[in-house]
């Protein structure tokens, strides 16, 4: 190592940031060269002066912090672009696979039964005793689920359940549900009694109650006994993370509010005060909104929702359906047919799109073969 190289390393020797090898070289040179030792002392003094200037430097005012945290509280963190760009090939591959799968599924199963709307959000298992009736009535098959036993009680769980029951007397079933709610600390949140206009229509009723979360399973079982069970669903959602996140955001916003109040106390100019007041107003609005959301989430955890749909066992007379009912059925069948046709059309288009590269390659190959063949024939 040349002397000039050692000189360049001296500041970093002083700040003790050299690796062992470099340090050994510098120390060897220092041991032999008095001028270098003197230079080293000068650098150490200089470093001390710069560090001293740092100790006397200002600290940033609290308003900077308030500004940063106000901006952060007002915005939701979006997935960073770098992460997105890193995941882009994965998304592309997934999209391609999805398109092929969707195309394949729809083009090979055009008459498959349509999916039902309610999908369980946590791990569910189908009740064995209900499998048979589920097979008979595919439109309620996906509803007939029950939460898997596990440690979900330890988390912040929001529960919702639905029952579909056939009963002899809908009005009586509704009354009994209300009585159950009153006697078990639950609250009726909605009630619909669809009394049939004529003897041929079916009597329908719906009731929704909110029960204390710990009585959810008991309520579902008790209400299921009011009639013949046609469908049963339960969804559970762990909203603990959302609650913690909202609580943290609320804490930050309250801190920001306090900071803004301090800033306002210190601000001199009217324009500054107005600006801070404006920010304060926005922050308070966010606090109120978040507070309300948090309360709502906690309510969802404390009280589970149970909805029960009652349907009368049979109409008063089981005569031939009315003309209006027949026309309604025909219209619904036609709509279903159009829907299936549209889905099949879209599936075929997606399938074609997915296979487009292969089609293009094949077409290109055929074109090349055709050109060579044409040349060969012309030459003869």
């Amino acid at each position: 190592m040349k002397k000039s190289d050692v000189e360049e390393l001296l500041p970093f020797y002083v700040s003790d940031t050299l690796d062992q090898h470099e340090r050994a070289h510098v120390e060897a040179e220092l041991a032999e060269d008095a001028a270098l030792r003197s230079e080293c002392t000068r650098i150490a003094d200089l470093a001390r002066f710069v560090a001293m200037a740092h100790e006397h430097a200002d600290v940033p005012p609290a308003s900077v912090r308030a500004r940063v945290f106000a901006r952060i509280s007002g915005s939701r963190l979006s997935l960073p672009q770098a992460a997105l760009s890193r995941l882009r090939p994965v998304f592309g591959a997934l999209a391609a696979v999805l398109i092929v799968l969707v195309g394949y599924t729809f083009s090979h199963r055009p008459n498959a039964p349509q999916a039902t709307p309610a999908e369980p959000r946590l791990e569910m298992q189908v009740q064995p005793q209900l499998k048979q009736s589920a097979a008979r009535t595919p439109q309620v098959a996906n509803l007939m689920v029950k939460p898997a036993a596990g440690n979900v009680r330890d988390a912040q769980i929001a529960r919702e359940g639905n029952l579909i029951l056939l009963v002899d007397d809908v009005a009586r079933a509704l009354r009994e549900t209300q009585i159950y709610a009153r006697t078990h600390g639950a609250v009726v949140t909605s009630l619909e009694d669809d009394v049939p206009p004529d003897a041929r229509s079916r009597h329908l009723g719906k009731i929704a109650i909110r029960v204390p979360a710990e009585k959810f399973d008991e309520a579902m079982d008790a209400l299921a006994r009011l009639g013949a069970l046609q469908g049963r669903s339960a969804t559970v959602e762990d909203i603990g993370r959302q609650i913690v996140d909202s609580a943290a955001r609320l804490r930050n916003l309250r801190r920001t509010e306090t900071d803004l109040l301090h800033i306002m106390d210190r601000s001199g100019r009217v324009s500054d005060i107005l600006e801070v007041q404006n920010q304060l107003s926005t922050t308070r609005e966010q606090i109120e909104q978040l507070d309300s959301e948090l309360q709502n989430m906690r309510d969802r955890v404390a009280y589970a929702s149970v909805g029960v749909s009652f349907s009368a066992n049979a109409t008063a007379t089981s005569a031939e359906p009315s003309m209006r009912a027949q026309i309604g059925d025909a219209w619904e069948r036609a709509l279903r047919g159009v829907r299936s046709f549209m889905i099949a059309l879209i599936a075929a288009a997606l399938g074609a799109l997915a296979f487009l590269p292969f089609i293009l390659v094949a077409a290109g190959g055929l074109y090349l073969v055709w050109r060579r063949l044409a040349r060969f024939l012309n030459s003869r």
Partner: protein
Amino acid sequence: MARAPQDASEASERRWLQAAARGDRSAFEALYERFERPVYRYIVGLLGNADAAQDVLADTMLDVWRCAARYGGVSRPSTWIFAIAHHKAIDCGRRRKTPTLALDELARVPDPSEPPDDIALRGFEAHEVALALGELRADHRAVIELAFGHGYGYREIAAIVGAPAGTIKSRVFHARKHLQAILERRGVQREVS
């Protein structure tokens, strides 16, 4: 002398940065507490203007929050954050063209007629050093601040500034020669020379 973060605190910083990338505001608060002052001091040293430095600090910390997921973990978190601050300060300096010392800083110059106790003397010398640093070119000021003010090695400075390590070594060499000359001219030379 302020030193570069050691291993223990570096692990915490990495953890905070990863949590901030997932949207954890309390982790970001911890990160903010840790870097608020050193980053601000670096920016003030670079720009020589407290108002502009406050804006750059806010921009830097907001970028840290927004782009925490881009931190690849190759360099130290402090190096990554200082690199953001450095580039923002350089951009700001280009826009402002002429770095100036803030009036409030000038107002804090101790009165030479006061009794020369050690504290006042140190304050006076610190102020003189700050002024001397202000006379340096921006790229020289940056490497001096990072090497002596924050205790970074030349490889880390190279990562922060975005220049080859060899360039940084020679830049620090010339910058300190220049700074020593300025300090001697200003009379802060008793101990430096």
